[in-house]
């Protein structure tokens, strides 16, 4: 009997084109759009040397200290400037007009910075020259008061940069903010699986559909029919999530880290979470199918928004200001579980997310069971 119901429920579900679109094609399309929109986001965050120039006039020639500093920050892979040397101010102005440089320095009693517009590069150039002035002034003052300091390594000390905050990496992977968009997309796809769960409950509750009433009249235990249908729904959803994961990993090169087994386990738990959530909503809300669908869409999309799918910082704002909400949002739990697998070496955070999801699943399943097990209805 289980197999008979399973096969036909599988056929019913897989032939529901609307559901297949929303649970498989829509996340794939959205993932593709994300990829097109965010593929350069990480590249834009890497620092590029600033195109700068210095006017090579007599003042510059005489200021050996500045020349030395400018040369040192314009060398190597991590250089600050792509430095050009203009023979005179007119040439530097010409480069500036042609946007060949972001700004140029002119030596003198005070080093002058000339820019055409304001921006990040110009701000960095200004900060550089300010720091140079401060350091230079400090060295001059100390040398005047204590000439021996120069012999005791003053220049070395001034030139040395010290950071008083220590960066501790949570894992061996490179931090990647863009991944959060894709992980929350997978989480959303899992929660869209709630439509499958709702359909199963709808077709088993005699007070909801006539089909269900007919099933209730058959000599079949209602929970057996429900379990067979739910298994069919779970298999379909899990395969859909696998297809989505494969597309993201192999089609769009989205990294999921090295722990493939855990990633699959997360996808499975996410699928169970989606199905059980839909079944719970389907059972709890007694109003029409439209209201149930609206409820699922609102919860899933709001959860996705709060998990950072539309605005990346939202996830961190919620974690900072309303942390309980982060733990009560199933989409966030799934998103965070995927990110924890990718980024952290430790499984502690991952286990916390998975534990919360399992609690949610137990809650949804218990609630659904208590409602669905009812054998007679007060009204049909």
């Amino acid at each position: 009997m289980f197999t008979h119901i399973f096969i036909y429920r599988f056929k019913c579900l897989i032939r529901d084109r609307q559901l297949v679109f929303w649970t498989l094609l829509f996340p794939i399309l959205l993932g593709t759009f994300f990829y097109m929109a965010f593929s350069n986001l990480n590249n834009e965050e890497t620092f590029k040397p600033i195109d700068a120039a210095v006017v090579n006039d007599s003042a510059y020639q005489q200021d050996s200290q500045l020349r030395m500093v400018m040369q040192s920050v314009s060398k190597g892979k991590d250089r600050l400037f792509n430095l050009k040397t203009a023979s005179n101010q007119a040439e530097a102005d010409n480069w500036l007009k042609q946007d060949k440089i972001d700004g140029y320095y002119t030596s003198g009693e005070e080093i002058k910075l000339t820019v055409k517009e304001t921006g990040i590069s110009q701000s960095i150039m200004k900060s550089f020259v300010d720091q140079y002035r401060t350091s230079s002034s400090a060295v001059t003052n100390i040398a005047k008061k204590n000439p021996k300091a120069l012999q005791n390594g003053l220049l070395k000390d001034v030139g040395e940069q010290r950071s008083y905050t220590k960066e501790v990496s949570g894992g061996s992977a490179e931090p990647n903010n863009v991944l959060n968009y894709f992980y929350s997309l997978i989480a959303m796809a899992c929660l869209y699986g709630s439509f499958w769960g709702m359909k199963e409950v709808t077709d088993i509750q005699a007070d909801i559909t006539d089909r269900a009433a007919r099933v209730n009249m058959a000599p079949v235990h209602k929970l057996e029919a429900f379990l067979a249908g739910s298994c069919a729904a779970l298999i379909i959803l899990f395969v859909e999530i696998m297809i989505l994961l494969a597309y993201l990993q192999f089609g769009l090169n989205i990294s999921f880290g090295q722990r493939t087994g855990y990633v699959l386990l997360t996808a499975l738990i996410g699928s169970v979470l989606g199905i059980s959530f839909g079944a719970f909503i389907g059972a709890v809300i007694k109003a029409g199918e439209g209201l149930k669908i609206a409820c699922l869409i609102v919860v899933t999309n709001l959860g996705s928004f709060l998990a950072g799918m539309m605005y990346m910082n939202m996830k961190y704002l919620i974690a900072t200001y309303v942390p309980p909400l982060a733990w009560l949002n199933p989409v966030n739990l799934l998103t965070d579980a995927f990110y924890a697998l990718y980024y952290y070496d430790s499984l502690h955070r991952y286990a916390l997310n998975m534990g919360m999801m399992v609690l949610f699943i137990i809650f949804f399943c218990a609630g659904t069971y208590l409602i669905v097990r009812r054998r007679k209805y007060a009204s049909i």
Partner: protein
Amino acid sequence: MTIVMIVNDQRHLPRCGCSITLSTVGEELLPLIIHVKNLVKRYGELVALDHLSLDIKEGEIFGLLGPNGSGKSTAINCILSLLSYDKGEVEIFGRKMAPDAYDIKRDIGIVMQNVAVFDELTVYENIDYFCGLYVRNKAERKRLVEEAIAFVELDDFRKFYPKKLSGGLLRRLNIACGIAHKPKLIILDEPTVAVDPQSRNKILEGIERLNAQGATIVYTSHYMEEVEQLCSRIVIIDKGRVIASGTNEELKAMITLGEKITIEAFSIDAEQLRQMRELPGIVSVEHIDKRLIIKSGKGTNNLETVLDFLKTHQIGFGRIYSELPTLNDVFLEITGKQLRD
């Protein structure tokens, strides 16, 4: 008279093999298939079933007739243990009906008022799915499904999805899903609602054939013509109460009306109307929209008298026709309202 006895004749035993209540119909003892006693169902203040009692015997086509909202579907759902009820007893095949009484359910087929099939499954798959909930053996199930398809004449549509079927074909599919497993008791809850006359006739013929094959039929409807045509015994309910029961003839014998004469395109003055009301055997005369409706009592043929009256008084008239009382007249006389109100 109703007696209770153990039946030794295995042909009449349901598969659960339990004791059966028997009832007399004339000289014949027939097992009771459904026994309902004092069923009460309330929706808050509204009493949907008010101490409803029914006895349905094996082999009959039992009609449950009543206007919309009279409690027919509620009664069926309570009998089938889909709905909870406040008070009363329900026995099917002599055994208390319950949601987990699978032995009883195995022998029941239900055809819902609304079409209850899956849009994602073809005609064949729908019938096979519902039949499979009752019959595990694949070969037997295949045979039963083929028989059901042939029975409702859907052979040319077996690979069609329900959305591609007309209303009448859908109703036939709905019936096939309910009867494919060859149940002993078939409950049809208004199966011809919104069906064209041709499909309706096919459905009614099919029900008669099912009955001829040995199934007991419970047929609910608010279409009196169908119930008159089909049912061997009829119960009329209103506001959740049985207001009359018996055969078609027995029900009509309960009322005073014997004949209804209608005269169209009619013009008559008040004095002539008064004189006509005083004619022997006439129960009532109503003048509505240029039509004269004359009701007469039983055992008197007043058509000739009325025609004589019209000729004597030189009253012109158009079409004239006479009708025997219908179940609607029975309902009207008992409740004071039309069956289709």
